C-alpha cells in the first residue's frame, strides 16, 4: 500500500515535470513561495503558461541557478555584487516583507510592549535574561512586567527571515556585529532553535516567557502578540504593510549596485526597522534565451498586476520607480548570444 503510493507519487511527479516542459522553471526561497504560487495560478489562467517553482530554500536556489538547471533562482538574501559578477548573474527584488518580534508573556498583548534595537540585541545575546530587567522596564514604564526568565526562540534552519533580523541587530549593536554577525543562519549565543516560521510561532506560543521573530504574515495568522519597535528616527512603530512599504520607499535603489539593498534600519518617521526584500537571480547570458524571455514576461506581469494579490497575502509590492529601474536593467544586462536584449518590457 505504502510502496504503491510512493510509486504513484513518483509517476505523478514525472508526469508533471514532463507536462511542464514549456513552462517557466524556478527554484529557491521558501519565504515568497505562497505568493509565487498564487501569481503562477493567475498567470496560467490568463496566458496558459505555467510556472514550476520549487521552494527548496535560498541556498538550493543559488546552487540551481549557478548549475543552470532552472530559468531563475530565488533568494531571500541578496548576493553581493562581486559574487554576482563572478557567477555571471543579475538579481532584482520582487516584493518586500518584514520580520516581527513576537512574545508570549502573561498580561502582555499585541503592540503593548515596545523595544529598541540595542535592547532587542541584548535579549538575543543572552545578556538580558529576565522580563523585568531595568532596560525593558525603562522603555515600558506603563506595562506590568513579571520577573519570568526570557526564553529566546530562533530559527534552526537557514532563512531569509533570520538574515533580515540578524542584519538589523548587527546595525544597531556593535557587539552583535562582532560576536554573531548576520546571515541566513548564525551561531546563536542563546535560546532554542525551531524549524520554519511555523516552528518558531509554535514554540513561542507553547512556552511562557518566550520571545522569537517570525515573518509578518505568520504573526498575523496566528494572532501572536507582536512587539512594537523604536525605529531609527526614534518613533514607536507597529508592524504593518504600510510600515514595510515606508522602508522600501526610503531605500536608495537608484544608486544601488546590482540592487544590493538591505532594508533594515532605514530612516523615516513611519519606517519598520526590520524589513527586507526577496530577490530573483538570473544569468546575464541565459543558455535558453526564449525561456528567459518567458520568465521576464511573467515578472513584468507580476509587477503590473500582482500587487493586489501580494497585499492580500501580506507582502508589500515594490514602488513603481523601482519596477521601472528593474525593467531597464533587464534590457541592459540580460542578453542573448546575439548581444541583443532577450526581452524588453515596454
Amino acid at each position: 500500500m505504502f510502496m504503491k503510493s510512493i510509486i504513484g507519487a513518483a509517476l505523478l511527479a514525472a508526469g508533471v515535470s514532463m507536462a511542464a516542459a514549456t513552462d517557466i522553471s524556478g527554484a529557491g526561497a521558501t519565504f515568497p513561495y505562497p505568493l509565487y504560487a498564487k501569481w503562477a495560478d493567475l498567470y496560467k489562467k490568463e496566458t496558459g503558461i505555467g510556472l514550476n517553482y520549487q521552494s527548496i530554500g535560498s541556498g538550493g536556489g543559488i546552487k540551481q541557478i549557478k548549475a543552470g538547471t532552472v530559468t531563475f533562482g530565488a533568494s531571500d538574501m541578496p548576493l553581493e555584487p562581486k559574487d554576482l559578477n563572478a557567477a555571471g548573474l543579475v538579481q532584482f527584488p520582487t516584493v518586500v516583507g518584514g520580520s516581527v518580534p513576537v512574545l508570549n508573556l502573561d498580561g502582555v498583548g499585541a503592540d503593548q510592549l515596545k523595544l529598541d534595537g540595542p535592547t532587542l540585541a541584548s535579549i538575543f545575546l543572552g545578556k538580558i535574561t529576565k522580563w523585568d530587567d531595568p532596560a525593558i522596564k525603562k522603555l515600558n514604564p506603563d506595562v506590568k512586567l513579571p520577573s519570568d526568565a526570557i526564553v529566546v526562540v530562533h530559527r534552526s534552519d537557514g532563512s531569509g527571515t533570520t538574515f533580515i533580523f540578524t542584519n538589523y541587530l548587527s546595525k544597531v549593536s556593535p557587539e552583535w556585529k562582532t560576536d554573531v554577525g548576520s546571515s541566513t543562519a548564525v551561531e546563536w549565543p542563546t535560546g532554542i532553535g525551531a524549524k520554519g516560521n511555523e516552528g518558531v510561532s509554535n514554540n513561542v506560543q507553547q512556552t511562557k516567557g518566550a520571545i522569537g521573530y517570525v515573518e509578518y504574515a505568520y504573526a498575523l495568522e496566528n494572532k501572536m502578540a507582536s512587539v512594537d519597535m523604536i525605529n531609527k528616527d526614534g518613533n514607536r512603530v507597529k508592524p504593518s504593510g504600510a510600515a514595510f512599504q515606508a522602508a522600501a520607499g526610503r531605500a536608495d535603489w537608484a544608486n544601488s549596485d546590482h540592487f544590493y539593498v538591505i532594508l533594515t534600519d532605514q530612516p523615516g518617521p513611519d519606517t519598520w526597522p526590520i524589513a527586507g526584500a526577496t530577490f530573483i537571480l538570473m544569468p546575464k547570458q541565459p543558455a535558453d534565451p526564449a525561456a528567459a524571455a518567458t520568465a521576464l514576461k511573467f515578472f513584468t506581469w507580476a509587477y503590473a498586476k500582482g500587487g493586489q494579490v501580494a497585499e492580500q497575502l501580506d507582502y508589500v509590492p515594490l514602488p513603481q520607480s523601482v519596477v521601472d529601474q528593474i525593467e531597464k536593467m533587464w534590457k541592459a544586462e540580460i542578453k542573448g548570444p546575439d548581444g541583443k536584449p532577450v526581452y524588453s518590457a515596454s
Partner: protein
Amino acid sequence: MAEISTPQLKTVDSGLHLRLRAARRFALSDSVFRLLTQSSAAFVLVMLGGVVLSLVYGSALAFRKFGLAFFTTQIWNPVTEKFGAAAPIFGTLVTSAIAMAIAVPVGVGIAVFLTELCPPPLRRPIGIAIELLAGIPSIIYGIWGLFVFAPFLQEHVQPGMIALFGSVPVLSSLFAGPPYGIGVLTASLILAIMVLPFVTSISRDVFDTVPPVLKESAYGIGCTTWEVVWNIVIPYTRAGVIGGIMLGLGRALGETMAVTFVIGNAHKIASSLLAPGTTISATIANEFTEAVGDLYTSSLIALGLILFMITFVVLAVARIMLMRLDVKAGR
C-alpha cells in the same frame, strides 16, 4: 527388422534427446536464476559502496579544511564558516544512551510479562498495541512531543526536577536551568518511546522460542519466576535480545524528525539535560536546504559520514559482543 528397429531406435533417440534438452533447459534457467540472485546481492554492495564513496567525496572539503579538529570543536558558525561536529555527536550519543537506558529494561520487562506472567486473554491486545506503537510515523511522535509532551514537562515535571535536585551536587548541574520544555531530556524520552516496541516485540518473539521443557524443569526444582527468567530465558535468548536492542539503538541514533521537533536545535554542549542541544540527523534536516556555500554543505555531509561511522561501529561492536558471548557459552 530394419524397418521395425529404425522407428524404435528413433523414438529412443528422440526421447533421450528430449530429456537432454530438458536438462539443458533446467541448467540454463538455474544459471539465470543464480545470476539474478547474485546480481541482487551484488547490488546491495554496490549501493553501500556508492553511498560511502559519495559521503567521503562530499565531505572531503570539510575534512581538508578543519582536519581532525572537526570532531572536537563545538563551534558551528555559518557566518565565519567555522564548523565543528562535537555538539551534534555529543547530542546523538547522549540522547541515544538515555533512550536505551529507559527502553531496554522497560521493553524486556514488558516481554517477560507477556510471555511468562500475562493472563492469556490480555496477551494479544497488549501485543498488538506494542506493534501499533512501532507503526506510528516518527513525525507524529514529533508533533505530539512538541504540542503535548513538552508543555506538560515544562509545566508539571521540570520545575519539580529543578527544585528537587537543586541542592544535590552532581544532579543539580544535570537538571539545571530554566524549564524550556523541549531539550535533550525530552528528546531522549520521545526516543525511548519510539525504540520501546522494537525491543519489546523482538524480545517477546525470542522468549517464545525457549523450549518449555527447560522452563518446566526449572520450575520443577522450585525456581521462582524471577530465577527462571534471569537464569533460563535470558541466557537462552541472549543473541536475539541483543539483536533487538541493536535494532532499537540503530533507530535511536538516526531518528530525525521527532528529535528535530523537541531537542531545541542549539549547537551547544550543555551539562544540563534540560538545556537544548542538537543531534547529527537533526542538524542535517534543519540546515541542508538553506546551506549556502560549499564548505557549509560539505560540513553537513561530513556529519552524515560521521553518523554512518557511528552506526557501523555500533553494529560491529554488537557482533563482536555476540561472538564473545557465544565463545564463553561454549557454542
